[in-house]
Structures are given as C-alpha cells and as structure tokens.
C-alpha cells in the first residue's frame, strides 16, 4: 500500500464533475506507465480470449483438453512449443486456457469486490459518525484476517465451484480498495463544490454518486487493481497446493501439475516457466497501472517523479 491508503491528502484539481467517461479518458491520457500497464493487461486478455481460435487452428480441430491427442510428456517442438503433459495434451493450449481463467476469476471477483468497496467507502466516508465507525471496523476486521488459510480450509472440503470461489475471493479483497477510496472520500467531502451541492438541496446519495464518485475514478481503479492482484494471488496460491475445482484449468493448477510431475528434475523447465511468466506479466501489468495512476493523481508525486 502506498501513501494513498492512509493519507487524506490533497487531490489535484478535481476533474470537472461530468460524465464518468470524461474522467476515464483523462486518466488514460495521464501517464505512460498507466498506458503500458493497461495495454499489457488488454493484450493478455485478448490473447486468452482468442485462444479458441488459435487453438483450433493449431490443433486442427482437436479439443485442447482431449486426452491423448499427442504423445505424452513430449518435449518442446514446433507442434507443441511447450511440450505436452502426462495425458498428451498440448501445454501451450492449456496455458492460454489457464491464462483466461486466472484473469477472469481475478477480474470478475475484483469487479464484485470493487463494487462493494465503492459502496461501503462512499457510504461510510460521506456519512461519518456511527455508520462510518461500523463500516470501517468491519473493513479492518476483514483486512487483518488472512484469506489464504481460510480459503484453503474451505476449498479442501467444500466442492468449490466458480461462483463460490469468486464470492469468497471477493469477500476478502474488497476491504483494501474500500480503505483507499474512503480516505479520498473523507477529503473530498470538505470540498467547496460538495458544500455547494449540499446547500442546493441535493440528497446524500445524489451528492455521493453525482459529485464525489466521478472524482474517485482513479482511486477506484487502484482499488480494483489491488483487488485483482489479491484475487489472482489467492486463487493461484490455492491451486498451487492442489485445491479448488479440479476440472477447471488455471495457471496455478498448471504449476501444481508441473510440480507434481516433477517437471524441474526432468528438465522440463518450460512447464514451470510458462505459467510463471504469464503470472509475472499479469502482476507487472497491474502494478504498472497502480503506479501510473499514483504518479498522476497523487499530488505530492505529481511532477516530481522525474521519470
């Protein structure tokens, strides 16, 4: 976490309260790092969604998860750039499927988490008083609870399907974003234009969603990105141990398979490097997005990053 989490500092001159679209495009143009991160992420997403087509072309119509399509445990070749697994399935195809799943679970659970985070942070931060105290305490309580052990315990014995997984992941990843956003809400609500709106008779929710929310967009993105990081981290960690829905392929599961099959000792480094590199790229992309936004929107850093 960075300064943004705790310091209700000054925000740079707020974007004119208007459609969220304008806020969003302004953010896009804001920082090269942000652009790089977003581009990388979108590339990965695109790649994973193009997987069905790519796989269809490469495997000539055979299903990527069909057993025995290729010789088992084959080394890297033109046909199988990453080799095959113990059932004779092409690892590159599996990798792309895993990439898609890891991204989707992270993004969807992240979206859920952020929606909750925005609501909680806005409501608590703006209302203040008892409501804020209550919401803030609950936020902190979940924040200090380590999610991985609980996930492990649950996943080991409850047939975890995607919906349940996403829900549990979202449950543990919303507090961080809520904290970040709440800090901003606290400072924003003292702004003159908010005061003006209040005096003009706008209701609480009107102010929250009409005046404050558009200015929260950068922080919402940061919160979302942290949530996605947390989710993918948790889901991958869970799969690494071998838990979770076994018929759904994710990057963590591929790593687990590699480890269980003793890939390293047999020199099949690609089996491990493939998923690892994908994961690294995802985290780097998200990190870039975070840093990019903070460079632009954290006033203390603006203009002095020197990069």
């Amino acid at each position: 976490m960075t300064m943004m989490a705790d310091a209700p500092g000054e925000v740079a001159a707020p974007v004119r309260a208007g459609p969220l679209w304008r806020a969003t495009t302004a953010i896009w143009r804001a920082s090269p790092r942000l652009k790089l991160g977003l581009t990388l992420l979108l590339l990965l997403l695109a790649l994973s969604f193009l997987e069905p087509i790519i796989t269809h072309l490469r495997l000539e119509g055979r299903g990527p998860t069909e057993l025995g399509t290729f010789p088992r445990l084959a080394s890297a070749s033109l046909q199988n750039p990453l080799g095959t697994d113990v059932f004779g399935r092409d690892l590159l195809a599996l990798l792309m499927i895993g990439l898609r799943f890891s991204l989707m679970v992270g993004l969807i659970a992240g979206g859920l988490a952020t929606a909750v985070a925005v609501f909680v942070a806005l409501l608590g931060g703006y209302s203040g008083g008892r409501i804020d105290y209550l919401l803030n305490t609950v936020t902190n309580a979940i924040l200090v609870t380590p999610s991985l052990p609980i996930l492990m315990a649950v996943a080991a014995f409850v047939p975890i399907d995607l919906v349940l997984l996403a829900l549990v992941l979202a449950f543990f990843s919303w507090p961080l974003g809520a904290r970040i956003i709440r800090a901003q809400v606290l400072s924003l609500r003292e702004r003159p234009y908010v005061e003006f709106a209040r005096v003009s008779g706008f209701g609480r929710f009107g102010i929250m969603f009409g005046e404050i929310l558009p200015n929260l967009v950068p922080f919402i993105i940061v919160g979302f990105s942290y949530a996605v990081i947390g989710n993918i981290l948790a889901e991958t960690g869970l799969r690494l141990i071998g838990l979770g829905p076994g018929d759904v392929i994710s990057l963590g599961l591929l790593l687990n398979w590699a480890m269980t099959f003793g890939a390293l000792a047999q020199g099949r480094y690609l089996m491990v490097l493939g998923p690892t590199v994908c994961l690294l790229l995802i985290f780097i992309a998200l990190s870039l997005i975070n840093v990019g936004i903070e460079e632009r929107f954290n006033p203390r850093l603006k203009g002095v990053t020197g990069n």
Partner: protein
Amino acid sequence: MARVATYYAARLANYLVVLLIAFTIVFFFLRLIPGDPVENYLQSLAQQGFRIEGSAQIIATYREKFGLDQPLLVQYAAALERTFLHLDLGVSLMNYPQPVESSIMVRLPWSIWLLGVSTVIAWVLGIAAGTVTGWLRGTAFDSVFYNLSISLAQVPQYLVGLLLVLILAYALGLFPAGGAYSAGVAPGLNLEFFGSVLYYTTLPALSIVIVSAFFWLLTTRALTVSILGEDYILFAEAKGLRRLRILNRYILRNTLLPQVTGFAVSLAFIVNGFFLIEWIFRYPGLGSLLVAAVGQRDFNTVQGIILLSIFTVLTANLIVDLIYPLIDPRIRTAAERA
C-alpha cells in the same frame, strides 16, 4: 491529557471490537465446511484397507467429545468464551487430547525466525534503497531500481520462491530446496547448527525479502520524493545545510514514521502469503502445521493459527498506534486538540 487518554481508550476498544469481528468471521467460515474430522479420519483409514465397522457409534462419541453436536450458535458462544475469557485455543482434533497451544508452540519459533528475519531485513533494505533512489531521482540508478520495484513489488512471494528454487536450488544446486536445517546436524547452541540454519533460511527469506524490499523501496521513494519537493527543503538547501544533514534531519525522520505504521499494516499481507512460502520450502513452522491441519479438518488448530496471526497483526498495529503520538509531536497535539 485527558483527551489523549480518550484517544488511547477509544483505540483499545476498537482493537477489541475488530478482534471479535475477525474471530467471528473465521469461526463461521470454518464451520461452513461439511463433514467432520472424525469421519474424515476414519474414512482415510478405511480407504487404506482397515476395516472400520460400527463407525456410527465412534463418530457420535467423538462429535460429542469435541462439542460438534451442539447447534452452531452454542458452539460459537462456547468458542468465544474459551478463547477470550480463558485464553485457551482448544483441543487439537488431530492430536487429541493435546491442546492446540502445544502444537503451535513447537512450530512457532521457526515461523517467528523466518518471518522476523525476512520482514525486518526487507524493511531496512527497502527504506534505505528507497531513500537513496528518491534522493537520486531522475538518474539512471533511480530509473533501474524504480522500474525493478514496479515489476516486483506486487508479485506473489511464493512465485518468487518457486523461481528461486528452480534457479538456485535445482539448476545451480547452490542452496537446499527445503527444510530448516540439515538432518545431519544436531540442534543445539553451536556454530554448526546456526550455520546450517542460516544456510537453509536463505532461500525462503530471500523470496520474502525480494518482494517486500522492493515494495518498501517504492513507498519510501514516493515519500522521499514528495518531501524533497517541499518548500522547507528548498529553504534548507538555500541556507547551505549539508546534504547529509538534510537527509538525516528532514527526510529520514519524515519517512520513517509513516513507514513504521506501514510496517504494521503490511504484516497482514505478508502473513497471508507466508504460509505458502513455508509450504514450498517445507519449513517446519506454522505454515506446514496449517496445511496438515486443513487436511485433517482440525478446525481448532486451523482456527488457532489464524487467530494467532490476526492477533499478531492487530497487536502490532495497536502498539504502533499507541506509540505514535509519543514519537510524532504533530499527532499528539492534534489528538489533544481533537
């Protein structure tokens, strides 16, 4: 002063409330799990060839012993009372009748060692590096480290751990791939043992340090850079103060304080991934105990470990929050004014 006392009291009360809520969350999540540990154990026995007959009776008896046959809320109340009033973490289901505490106590030193060493080293390194890069902002040195941190600060530690194992342990054979010390060395207060421990701690610690240090680098650098942009620095430079003095008097003091708070806050996230690191490196700490307990559905042990980590994080935060006003005069005055 009364106001400061109120601040302290309020902070303490908040600490307890958060602790209670966290406890409740953990308890109910674990109870979501169907089946019970006794059935699980007997079943695994049966699968291995033992003939277990009349198991209904056995399961019923043990459910009663462990209080698993009570309605959920009754169990919750009992657990609350036991944990908070008697400070008793309960009985370990997989090591019945040993209490959870004894299982945890055996493993705790290793976890404290690994966690302590890594987090402190990462913190110190990260802050030092962050200050230096912030000071040298704009240079190539800064550029390299800044970009490196961006890439690595948010990567899961276990991923780094896997890569380290791959490169340093398997491919190059420079470090052991797991364990806490060599089985050929008898534990004791001797150099050989310490040497062995250090050697085996290197890779797991490195996994944590690499990610953590870069994270601290990022945040410290941001703080440093922002301070450097402040007017009073300009004034100090204009006054002719030597750079080292500026560094010491203004920058360090202003970055260290928030980073101490940050350290306490970040503990929660470090602890979360920490269990996996222990698992990857087969470290005989709480992480392995946790995985074993999960496998055996030993609710009490799992709960005990999670509660311990929550307690540690919360207490660290509490201590920092209580000490902070004493260190930072600005906060104290603000608290007095509030």
